[in-house]
């Protein structure tokens, strides 16, 4: 069972500022879902390789040829906050 502390920890990892109500609802619902998921533990998978992907393609390479990049203005056009050619974020380095 997931505890309230577990839910708070996962919410911090996931960068989700959940309200106390949401945290409680999440605890109940995650536990209900995990009851179903826990059935997987009983499946015998000894010696079975995992599948990360359904298509057997590996190391798809292309020639390393220079191409025109996307214009910076187009890439910055959706930024909620920008300064010149940069995305602006809250200060992360102390003075």
């Amino acid at each position, binding site marked *: 069972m997931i505890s309230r502390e577990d839910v708070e920890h996962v919410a911090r990892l996931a960068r989700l500022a959940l309200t106390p109500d949401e945290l409680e609802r999440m605890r109940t619902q995650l536990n209900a879902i995990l009851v179903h998921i826990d059935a997987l533990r009983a499946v015998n998978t000894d010696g079975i390789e995992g599948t990360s992907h*359904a298509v057997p393609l590996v190391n798809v390479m292309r020639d390393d040829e220079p191409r025109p990049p996307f214009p910076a203005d187009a890439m910055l056009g959706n930024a909620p906050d920008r300064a010149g050619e940069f995305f602006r*974020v809250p200060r992360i380095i102390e003075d």
Partner: protein
Amino acid sequence: MDLHRPIHELTAAFSRGETSPTAVTEAYLGRIEKLDGKLGAYITVTAEQARAAAAAADRRYRAGSPLGPLDGVPVSIKDVFCTRGVPTTSGSRILERYVPPYDATLVSRLAAGGAVMLGKGNLDEFAMGSSTEHSAFHVTRNPWDLARVPGGSSGGPAAAVAGGLAAGGYGTDTGGSIRQPAAFCGVVGLKPTFGRISRFGLIAFASSLDHPGPFGLDVTDAALLLGGVAGHDSLDATSIPAPVPDYTADLARGVRGVRLGVPDEYFIPGMDPEIEAAVRAAVEVLKGLGASVERVSLPATPHALATYYVIAPAEASSNLARYDGVKYGLRVPGRDLVDMESRTRAAGFGAEVKRRIMLGTYVLSAGYYDAYYGQAQKVRTLVRRDFDAAFGRVDLIVAPTTPNVAFKHGDKEDPVQMYLNDVFTIPADMAGIPAISVPCGFTAGGLPIGLQLIGKALDEPGVLRAAYAYEQATDWHRRHPELA
């Protein structure tokens, strides 16, 4: 004007000069204007752009040189494909003001083929859901009964095609999000092989499971819509470098001698008896057309749902980490970077998306990774091996698309009940193999039922051929809802 006219008939009429892309586009736009307030199939309608594309198609038909089988064809595109200069929301508040600077490959291929985009179709937020009730903007209603859901997550394009608000549509299928709404709305929905249609410019949900694919009024249309966008794309490293056949070439070859497998595990206690009866009757129809039928077993099927609810949320939690209030989309101010990110994501994501991010983050977190994610990947191998073994004996698998028909809005508040909807569609996503849903009957209450045909990797031609043979022997696909 009849707006339940298949694409192959529409374009033939364009070529004969009986009608034009502009006339048909105007008729669809008029119907959207009149009915979409009720149906909610679209998030954004791109009327001006559609008129310009239709006018260009008019000129090509007049000159006798259309670009191909989709020239001038009005379509709805799920709002999860990026469209240059047109808002692309993924059904989420966090992307409400996002205007992509580029087109998804699917979108640019449609434009190159002359197709007319009518607008961006509604969906469950980030394609997470089975009812289109989880769109941040509005619900979509089922054209057969407005009190019921159209299925999801691609409910917008499915309802648009069923309701005569688009001639064709494109969605994505991660756990059933094309086939389940196709079944609920009584149209054809095709999920091709993983990598057959490029994912470039598709807003990612679960990268190892996301399959773009079409909705059509009949199997021929599904074949045409697939052919218009399929093929290798150097911008998607998981795109399959195999040639694209003409999917309509052998449609009429029939199913004589084709071996069909009916899996025991797809007829479960609790499923709607009317669905079981309709699917078993459909198997008899295929048998009557010369196919052989045998029982097969896919023993890992009961574990597929749980496996999916580890793998898909895990991939989603990673993919959705990009919505951080920095590069695009919503930003809610905070006292520092982490606070800003956490407030932005809390305000921008809806309840179902938060639930999946939390679940995915949990199963990937230290101490749980092997028990959940590692184990789920191994069980995914067992699901694939089941199909491999079955396809050693049969050519195609025949099954119901869903265990129940369209349910009422608000009926599945419990997330686990909602997830159970996808129990018959998830396995083909896990294995990456092609699967189609075609109409195979109606309940006594008048709700559509879907028949699912599943084939080997890249055997879209075989899947389409059997679906076409069934369709030609029946007339379910000719029934359309009355909407006024």
